[in-house]
């Protein structure tokens, strides 16, 4: 167990170093950092001075060590577009993304489990068939189309919910939250549904399949033989056992929820890290791209590591994972 944990931890560190190398090479070689700082008519001598002051004359391994040392302390350099430190830009926008991702995950889990249980227990009802059809469409429709559809329906036509932004936010120390104001909560609804819909269909299909499997097992038959109520069998015995893989998948998916927030944040102009990243790609703001890659990788690797270790703790039978395609 300890050996397994150590091996996985070393692997995770290896991945982070690999991502660090990619991130550094983007930062250093894709686009000249000097050009971004000086103006067009700066004389060559001055350029050289800037080059020296940035340490770009040092050997590449030294530069990499410096970059990595800074990155560990969350220093990612200065954004080309905003002329501000990347770390403060990211910190400013992280609460928005995390709030959105957590709300989307909760939405997906609650409705995904409810719909999955229903379509497993009442397989032949019309509603269960509708759920199945919706899940097929949910997997086929691109996220941004779902967002546009929801905006057209609830913002343009009905006028119930805002179509962009976070609404009013409350500042709690360095964290800003939209959960404490009415307009903030209203602004959260449509983006959360858009972002969570794919996870919802995934969880619904998983719960349905797991429920159907568990209901066929011997211990459920034994529970029926003991004369337990249907309710106790379904929710006390069957559902409990389906929840382990569901929580695993939801945990693994949290990383990609944060990555997919890029699309949702663009549709709803949500002021989070994803929107910052898209603007960075559009404007070729390499420091932000490199830092975002490092941050998201850190989140991904940490989640994968924790889930992998929990796997063996909770249920050694679990080996399969479900991954998101696009």
């Amino acid at each position, binding site marked *: 167990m300890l050996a397994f944990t150590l091996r996985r931890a070393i692997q995770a560190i290896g*991945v982070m170093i*690999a*991502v660090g190398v990619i991130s550094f090479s*983007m930062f250093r070689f*894709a*686009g000249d950092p000097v050009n971004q700082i000086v103006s067009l008519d700066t004389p060559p001598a001055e350029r050289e001075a800037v080059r020296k002051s940035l340490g770009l004359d040092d050997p590449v391994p030294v530069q990499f060590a410096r970059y990595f040392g800074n990155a560990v302390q969350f220093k990612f350099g200065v954004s080309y577009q905003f002329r501000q430190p990347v770390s403060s830009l990211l910190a400013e926008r992280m609460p928005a993304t995390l709030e959105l991702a957590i709300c989307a995950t909760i939405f997906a889990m609650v409705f995904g489990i409810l719909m999955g249980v229903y379509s497993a227990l009442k397989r032949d009802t019309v509603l269960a068939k509708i759920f199945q059809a919706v899940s*097929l*469409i949910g*997997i*086929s*429709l*691109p*996220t*941004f*189309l779902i967002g*546009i*559809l929801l*905006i*057209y329906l609830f913002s*343009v036509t009905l006028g119930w919910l805002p*179509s962009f932004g976070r609404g009013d936010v409350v500042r709690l120390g360095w964290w800003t939250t939209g959960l404490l104001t009415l307009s903030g909560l209203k602004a959260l609804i449509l983006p959360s549904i858009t972002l969570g819909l794919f996870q919802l269909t995934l969880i619904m299909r998983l719960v349905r399949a797991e429920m159907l499997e568990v209901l066929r097992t011997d211990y459920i038959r034994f529970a029926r033989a003991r004369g337990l109520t249907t309710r106790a069998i379904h929710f006390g015995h069957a559902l409990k056992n389906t929840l382990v893989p569901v929580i695993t998948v939801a945990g693994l998916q949290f*990383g*990609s929820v944060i*990555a*997919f927030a*890029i*699309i949702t944040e*663009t*549709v709803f102009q949500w002021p989070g890290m994803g929107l910052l*990243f*898209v603007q*960075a*790609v*559009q*404007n*070729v703001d*390499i420091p932000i*791209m490199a830092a975002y*890659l490092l941050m*998201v*990788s850190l989140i*991904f*690797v940490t989640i*994968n590591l924790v889930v992998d270790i929990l796997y063996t703790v909770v249920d050694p039978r679990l080996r399969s994972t479900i*991954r*998101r*395609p*696009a």
Partner: protein
Amino acid sequence: MSDAVVPHRAEPSAAVARAGTSWFRRALDSDIFYSFRRSKLTMVAAAVTLLFFLLAIFASVLSVQNPFDPAQLQLMNSRISPLWTADGQSPFLLGTDEQGRDVFSAILYGLRISLVVGVLGVVFAGALGITLGLIAGYVGGAVDGLIMRIADVQLTFPAILIALLVNGVAKSVFGNRLDAMSTLVVLVVAIGLSFWVQYARTVRGSVMVEKNKDYVAAAQLIGLPAPIIMLRHVLPNTMGPILVIATINLALAVITEATLSFLGAGMPDTMPSLGTLIRIGNNYLFAGEWWIVAFPGFALAGLILSINLLGDWLRDALNPKLR
């Protein structure tokens, strides 16, 4: 699969009566075609997919104007609603956008771009993945370890993130103002680099099984070089699963291209794909001009859904366990 186990096969004498059409008859008699005929949904999906491809190929014939040619656009014709509404005008079946571009023509040309990027992206991803998978499976050892470790790491990250990064780096290396054709190439490379892993893993798995079989040993014994054995003898035996992955990947590639274009990191406004059209149209949603975004959206959704249905069917049809 051997012909002898196919139960509903026609009499051999009939099948070889005319040698020229025998492959066609064999195709009609195959298990795959049988399961195709049995599923109405698949036939509809295939027809819709075929229709989309035909629309894309014959875009210049079917459209009323070339939406890429500014000389053919007239601002007088801007923001006309679809033909069946009160303000509709012939010949603009689905209305026009803010530049007087006919939405139907723009969809046809956009469909062409989307499919070109999607198909080329799948081909590039497939070529890359199959090559690396063949090498990893056949050579084994440290090479295998390296390739598969890279694949593992990449699989942790969503394809869209990788595609966006590739795109951003390409822009920064080649300058921010790429022309439309170069952007198309960048998109194909970005999609290829995001989707190769699945091919590599599948091919590697099949190769590990195949390479211990007698026919490979025989080929090695007569002294064939490794590349020839890999391409001519091992690869054809791994094609079934690759076909399934390629079909499902086509839908994913089209979604990825559309998403990149929607995010403003894909095809430019001067040469719009379906994703670009949706991004442009999205700006006019609040003005009540829903048709500019709705019809490209329908086209994209219909295309992806029908390709997905085809892929699902193909996976089941080629899976011997489900027969």
